[in-house]
């Protein structure tokens, strides 16, 4: 059997003295959509940041295509195709849409395919082409989320890690963004999705992990978890309750 694209093994991460992740292990198969769900503070973002190389683990491994990434910094990981769409979008607001996209394709490998990538982004998100020369900060929330994903696509990613894509978006826009994520996946990008909109996330993913206070407490296919009584009680429909 082929190795998974991304493999996280026994990952432990702390902020100073505060432990954030305990013994996290997960696998993301090439070409799949994997969802990471759980309440605020469960450690989902911490996990993505560690995979991106923004945080160093206390112990454990992040393995990409069979290679341990321990010695690689964020730049080298982006060059390998591990790209993150951060929570809150984190666009460069005073820069134009096009400048934001250009920065997404900053490294030589991505720059070589700049024209193709740009066409691909504009095909996925036609509104970005119309707004090309406008300031990123002046766009609506949905358009900004599209730009944030588009900026990641410019890096020609193998694995896109999307942190809370639906945050602050209306249900209609959320649905639209999810359709676009599925379309992106259809074009060959593997997706690791962190989501608060658990119902939607479980619907589009092939596999999901449920996190709680730094641990993975459940995993299974999207369908299994959607059917799971505990998950339904905790997250789907009944807001505010905790698993």
């Amino acid at each position, binding site marked *: 059997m082929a190795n998974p694209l991304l493999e996280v093994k026994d990952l432990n991460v702390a902020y100073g003295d505060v432990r954030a992740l305990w013994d996290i292990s997960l696998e993301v198969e090439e070409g799949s959509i994997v969802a990471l769900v759980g309440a605020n503070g469960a450690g989902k973002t911490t996990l993505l940041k560690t995979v991106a190389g923004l945080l160093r683990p206390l112990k454990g491994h992040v393995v990409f295509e069979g290679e341990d990434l321990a010695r690689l910094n964020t730049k080298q990981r982006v060059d390998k195709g591990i790209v993150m769409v951060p929570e809150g979008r*984190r666009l*460069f*607001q005073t820069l134009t849409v096009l*400048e934001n996209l*250009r920065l997404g394709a900053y490294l030589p490998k991505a720059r070589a395919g700049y024209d193709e990538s740009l066409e691909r982004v504009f095909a996925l998100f036609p509104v970005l082409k119309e707004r090309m020369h406008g300031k990123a900060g002046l766009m609506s929330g949905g358009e900004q989320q599209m730009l944030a994903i588009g*900026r990641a696509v410019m890096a020609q990613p193998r694995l896109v890690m999307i942190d809370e894509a639906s945050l602050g978006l209306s249900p209609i826009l959320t649905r639209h963004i999810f359709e676009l994520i599925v379309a992106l996946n259809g074009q060959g990008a593997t997706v690791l999705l962190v989501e608060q909109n658990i119902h939607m996330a479980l619907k589009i993913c092939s596999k999901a992990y449920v996190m709680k206070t730094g641990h993975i407490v459940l995993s299974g296919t999207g369908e299994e978890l959607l059917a799971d009584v505990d998950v339904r009680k905790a997250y789907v429909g009944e807001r505010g309750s905790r698993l």
Partner: protein
Amino acid sequence: MSSLIQVVINGILLGSMYGIAAVGLSLIFGTMRIIFIAQGTMIVLFAYLVYWSFEKAGIDPYLSLLWVVPLALILGLGLFYTLFRKAAALEDRNVSLLLAVGLMYLIDNLILKLWSATPRGLNITYSDAMIVVSGIRVSWLRLALLGLGLGSALAVYLFLKRTRVGTAVRAASEDMEATTIQGINSVWVCAVSFAIGIALAGVAGVGMATVYSFDYQFGFIFAIKALVALALGGIGNVFGALAGGLLLGVIENLAAYYVGIEWIEVASYGIFMLVLIFLPQGLFGRRALVKKV
């Protein structure tokens, strides 16, 4: 009337120097989030080097730009990687600020040791050359200061707008971590913007050598003047910073001419306070486009 015009023109020309320094401060502030208080001292250091090469080798100060700017860029990179690299990564900006203060006093005292406390100035053969237009007299050397200011601001503007690294500098000024997430080496981006800030100190040093009399203590005062200019112009806008410098020059000259030379500092710092209270984004600064998410 013509004396008013004369005063304003002199103010603009001398203010160019504040403007260049303010552009440098703005660039360094953008990525390092500190007021680089040693900027004035760096300018004085370069003024001494220009003075020295003029005295010892007879090199024309404006010709000196050819070696001062590359030297300043290299020195800037060197200073960043030896002094500021680790401090720049810390959340606490005070470490970087204290390093800059230390650097300022270190260089001040190095200058004192090397060139003594005697104020220096250049005697250039063409220093008296004037152009006279309908009774208004402008020395070529002072006019050249405005050229240095406009040239520097334009160069920095084009760097920020037209180059990849320049775009990354603007991005890093907004959000350092998001810049890193794009796979951009943000340490290098900080180093480059710092080095260009020091290169601007080199350009200002050439200007200072040609028209000022300077000594080892002049740097700190000059840095504060650049800070005032930056506050007037508004952070994050290259031409705003230059304009802030020109405006400060005009304010100082008007105060000196109409109220008395001893009122120069009172006027400039008074206006500094007023601007900070009533227009904290500066006269030409942009308001943030949207509240940060």
